[in-house]
């Protein structure tokens, strides 16, 4: 083998190693993100309207809403269908009839919002800009003089734009729902 070939080979190998090293994490992250997206579609408890929506964002949003950020826990009342509460040792069954329709009371005057799409398709009636403002600043669009209480927005505020967009897109794709009638509510 000629020297020039040898040098080219060594340089090529070095460059290749460097590039692979640099790509290792982004590629790994992309694989992980894809598995989160797939998992998101698996765990979505309602039928999704994907027309005109970015599937990857919706899947990621479902993963965030249903798994990592556990939005269901406060925004679905009661969170589980009768006989489907894992905290009582029952096999998990989300209350899909009132899914994300809010109505959980947290002390005087504080009730979790209905975050399902309104008749114009906007989650909780909010534009994306309003949603982001709510998550980042705690703005209460229902009572503009008040800061949002209970909802852990000071922590969600640090989510990436991508994650917030994904959550919003998922909430756009779920069916509209109403909170359960007060009498029918099961308090945890």
């Amino acid at each position: 083998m000629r020297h020039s070939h040898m040098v080219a080979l060594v340089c090529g190998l070095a460059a290749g190693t460097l590039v692979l090293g640099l790509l290792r994490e982004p590629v790994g992250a992309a694989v992980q993100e894809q598995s989160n997206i797939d998992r998101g579609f698996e765990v979505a408890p309602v039928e999704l309207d994907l027309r005109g929506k970015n599937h990857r964002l919706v899947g990621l949003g479902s993963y965030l809403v249903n798994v990592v950020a556990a939005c269901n826990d406060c925004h679905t009342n009661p969170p589980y269908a009768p006989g489907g509460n894992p905290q009582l040792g029952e096999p998990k069954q989300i209350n899909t009839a009132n899914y994300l329709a809010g109505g959980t009371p947290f002390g005087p005057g504080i009730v979790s919002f209905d975050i399902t799409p309104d008749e114009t398709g906007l989650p909780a009636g909010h534009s994306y800009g309003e949603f982001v403002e709510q998550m980042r600043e705690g703005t209460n669009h229902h009572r503009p003089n008040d800061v949002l209480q209970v909802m852990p927005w000071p922590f969600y505020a640090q989510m990436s734009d991508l994650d917030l967009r994904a959550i919003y897109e998922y909430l756009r794709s779920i069916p509209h729902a109403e909170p359960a009638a007060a009498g029918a509510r099961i308090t945890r």
Partner: protein
Amino acid sequence: MRFRMIASIAVPLLAVLALAGPGLLTAAKDYSLTPKIKRGLQIAPVKLNLRGKNRRLVGLGSYLVNSQAECVSCHTHPEFVAGHNPYLGERPARLNTANYLAGGEAFGPFVTTNLTPDANGNPGGLTYAVFLERIRTGQTPAHPQFGPFIQVMPWPSYREMSDQELRAIYEYLRAIPHAEPGASAAHRKARS
């Protein structure tokens, strides 16, 4: 001739690489961190002990604990330093780092657990295997009078997280300082 030409390029290049190697490696390492990991490392509110730990997992864990899954919200009590509580419109918000993730918030008869490392460095005194089992099965020996299942904490959602994410959370909890719960009531949020 050709060899000389290549050598004249390659030799200085390799020399530069050798000299700037450590700096380049650090830059490459940072470049290779994903946005979530980077953000996680940025938003960690306490000094992290990264010795013998995987920085990527700790970063991802921080993003999960401090933002996405907001463990801080129930497991830090009080959540914010007096005068810096964003729920009261006080800015800038300042997290209570003295009692960070040390638990002690009451939800009826249930009190959040201390998630910080014990004397052996195990978060909440749990090995990874036990931590994983707690999250995946929701079972706890903490309050037998109320049955075997963890109440209040939304583990039925968290249990669907990937192994990598749960490992990341555990690694982050290993990296934070030990803390004790704060004095009660003063800044308690109205929470069921």
